[in-house]
């Protein structure tokens, strides 16, 4: 399409682009450091392991990136992921329906729950932090209720583990057995980057994050668009739910809490502003990679767990500080 090629980049990306580069620099520094520190780090299998480890957090982070750009937040993404996994488990294992229905069911349930969060935020005007904190608890409880507090295994759906663990790429190029989970992460990232930068939905994300009232007074149905963005985020959480449950070959109903903070950290390390109005998917993916590389590297170096935590905290602050340093002082 010619217009995509000729059109200059939107400003939100102009700024975003620089940020990405900075987050990217942090990533490179970490990669170089760990490569030197451990000869085992830069092996194909380990690189694949790092990518694989990025997939779930990366997809969740993408889900919440858009929402954060609107100036909102979604704390329920972790437990929603679990709830969608449980949903897939119910459909496939308990009801014995075919795989595609399980996939659609998980994504649909994610979108539906996102719709509820979105409705709470828009129509009922509950601050996103509280609406999604409530949803986080509700979904956590419901996952346990629905599953009967028991993991649901996918043993009867043999294709299920292929979703994250198989390798379509490896089938074609056996030298690079990139797991499907990673492929899905990059596909989701590509699609969402397109949505954010090229579509009207993405434009409204940035605009509402910048000044929602001005957008409303421009005749835009902000209620509907914002609700749609939460629903879309929920649908993407459904993809994360499929990934994690495929990897574990089971829906683990007790898991999920805490995943939201990791995802949000990835988003912010990637240069998206929690105040809304600016951010990028590429940044988020780099942020998720930074976190995965960091944890993997520290584990390979056998850094004691307690120090791993300390170092992660420092790196999160440092990565964002680097980003601040280059920003215009007067920028808000």
């Amino acid at each position, binding site marked *: 399409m010619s*217009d995509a090629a000729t059109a*200059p980049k*939107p400003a939100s990306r*102009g700024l975003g682009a620089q940020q990405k580069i900075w987050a990217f620099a942090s990533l490179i520094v970490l990669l170089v450091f760990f490569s030197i520190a451990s000869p085992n780090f830069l092996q194909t299998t380990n690189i694949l392991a790092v990518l694989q480890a990025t997939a779930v957090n990366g997809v969740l982070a993408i889900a919440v990136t858009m929402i954060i750009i609107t100036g909102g937040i979604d704390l329920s993404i972790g437990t929603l992921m679990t709830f969608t996994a449980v949903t897939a488990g119910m459909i496939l294992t308990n009801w014995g329906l075919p795989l595609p229905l399980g996939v659609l069911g998980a994504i649909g349930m994610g979108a539906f729950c996102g719709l509820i969060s979105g409705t709470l935020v828009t129509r009922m005007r509950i601050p996103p932090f509280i609406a999604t904190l409530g949803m986080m608890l509700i979904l956590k409880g419901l996952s346990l209720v629905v599953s009967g507090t028991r993991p649901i295994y996918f043993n009867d759906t043999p294709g299920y583990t292929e979703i994250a663990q198989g390798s379509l790429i490896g089938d074609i190029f056996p030298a690079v057995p990139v797991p499907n989970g990673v492929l899905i992460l990059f596909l989701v990232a590509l699609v969402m980057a397109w949505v954010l930068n090229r579509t*009207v*939905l993405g434009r409204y994300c940035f605009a509402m994050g910048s*000044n929602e009232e*001005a957008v409303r007074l421009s005749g835009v*149905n902000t209620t509907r668009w914002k609700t749609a963005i939460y629903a879309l985020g929920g649908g993407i959480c459904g993809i994360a739910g499929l990934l994690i449950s495929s990897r574990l070959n089971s829906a683990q109903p007790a898991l999920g809490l805490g995943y939201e903070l990791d995802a949000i950290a990835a988003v912010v390390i990637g240069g998206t502003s929690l105040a809304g109005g600016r951010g990028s998917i590429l940044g988020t993916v780099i942020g998720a990679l930074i976190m995965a590389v960091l944890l993997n590297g520290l584990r390979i170096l056998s850094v004691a767990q307690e120090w791993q935590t300390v170092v992660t905290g420092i790196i999160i602050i440092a990565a964002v500080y680097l980003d601040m340093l280059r920003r215009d002082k007067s920028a808000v």
Partner: protein
Amino acid sequence: MADLVRMQAIDKRFPGVHALRAVHFDLAPGEVHALMGENGAGKSTLMKCLAGVYQPDGGRIEIDGAEVDLPSPKAAQDHGIGIIHQELALMKDLTVAQNIWIGREPRRSFGRLDEGKLNADTAALFAGMNIAMDPTTPVEGLTIARQQMVEIAKALSFRSRVLVMDEPTAALNDAEIAELFTIIRQLRAEGVGIVYISHKMDEIRRIADRVTVMRDGAYVGTVDAAGTPIGKIIAMMVGRELTDETAEIPDLSGAETALEVRGIRRGRELRDISFSLKKGEILGFAGLMGAGRTELARAIFGADPRDAGEILVHGRPVAIQRPQDAVRAGIGYLSEDRKHFGLALGMDVRANIAMASLSRHTGRLGQLDEAALAAHARDYIATLRIRTPSDRQEVRLLSGGNQQKVVIAKWLLRDCDILIFDEPTRGIDVGAKAEIYRLLQRLAADGKAIIVISSELPEVLRLSHRIAVMCEGRLTGFLPGGPATTQEEIMHLATLRPDITSEGAAA
């Protein structure tokens, strides 16, 4: 006698913008020195350098003949420099009094606040300014005009030796402006040096002693206010002569009705308002602050709920509950508060201009036609002379007047049949103002129906084909536009409060 302030060869660059090029400015004690220039000429930037908000990249600032360094607003305050910023800088959750004394609140031991003294001091300050305002009102509920009064009161409370007023009257009506001028004259008599920035040319005659003109970030010259014809000052500003045209009132007797409003009501703010507007007509709304014109516009547009009332567009009733209903029905509304209601400040010029029209440039998958949006943006940047390095510049980096033009462009692009402009020339320079007047006339000639709300009576008179006047939520009458109507007639209706007899008769 040494100058109070002397700014020499001040230079200031922002990314992509050379905002000040070796600008000179000086101020004597006891003078009102007007600083003039088109939107984006650099007036606010120069004064922000003096107020310690920006650090100049070059040049020197002297106070009482001694060079000073002004690294922070506090440092400037310590040198006796006070400023009223162009953009309101208030804390909406605090009260009027708390806002005025922020950072200087009367204290007792242990950091305890003396709230009683705080409010008493504020009451005294207001009394001196002849303003009736409760010091304990939260700022959030105030109209822009009243917020502006709070800013002025705050600046006065510093008892500064240098007082910078950056468009203090942009939101004020004539009575308030007169009040402000009384205060300014009093300060001048006390030896305070006042820098006065305004786009209202008549004010220069009334209040200024000297005028310094800037253009494109450069110093053009300083002239005596009394002895220099306004036309010359304007020529210095815009680099050419402007011709003033008056409105020709078209014959609209055969035109069809575009908008009809029947019995709009909301609480005490809007009381049973009905009027109609024809295609090709410019209907001016005049009234004092708080008359309810903004409220009326927002109610028509669906931005605020109504208790009662019907709206007919082209003769057909439309259910307008929310702004999107209004826009769908072909009504556009340009708000009086661009910062809060008009612009996504963090986004670029192009995105802001496109904001109300995205649905028209969206493909089947929701993808945007960026090329078209860019072309539109560049068109409006050219036609409205928006001073910006490119259509990708973030709007927050534009000068106030240029931001206003972006909002206008947004509604022009949307191409509504009915346009409501609330204070469309607020903060806009003379040259641009004339362009906007011409634009409105052209739009009307093209068959658009236009409402213009303005607090500047000359503007209402100059633009309107017909004038509606409001007072305290009521429509008190209509006057014909053009030279036949006088300001006094408008003021009469604007102060026409319902008298006891009519209230009694209604009961």
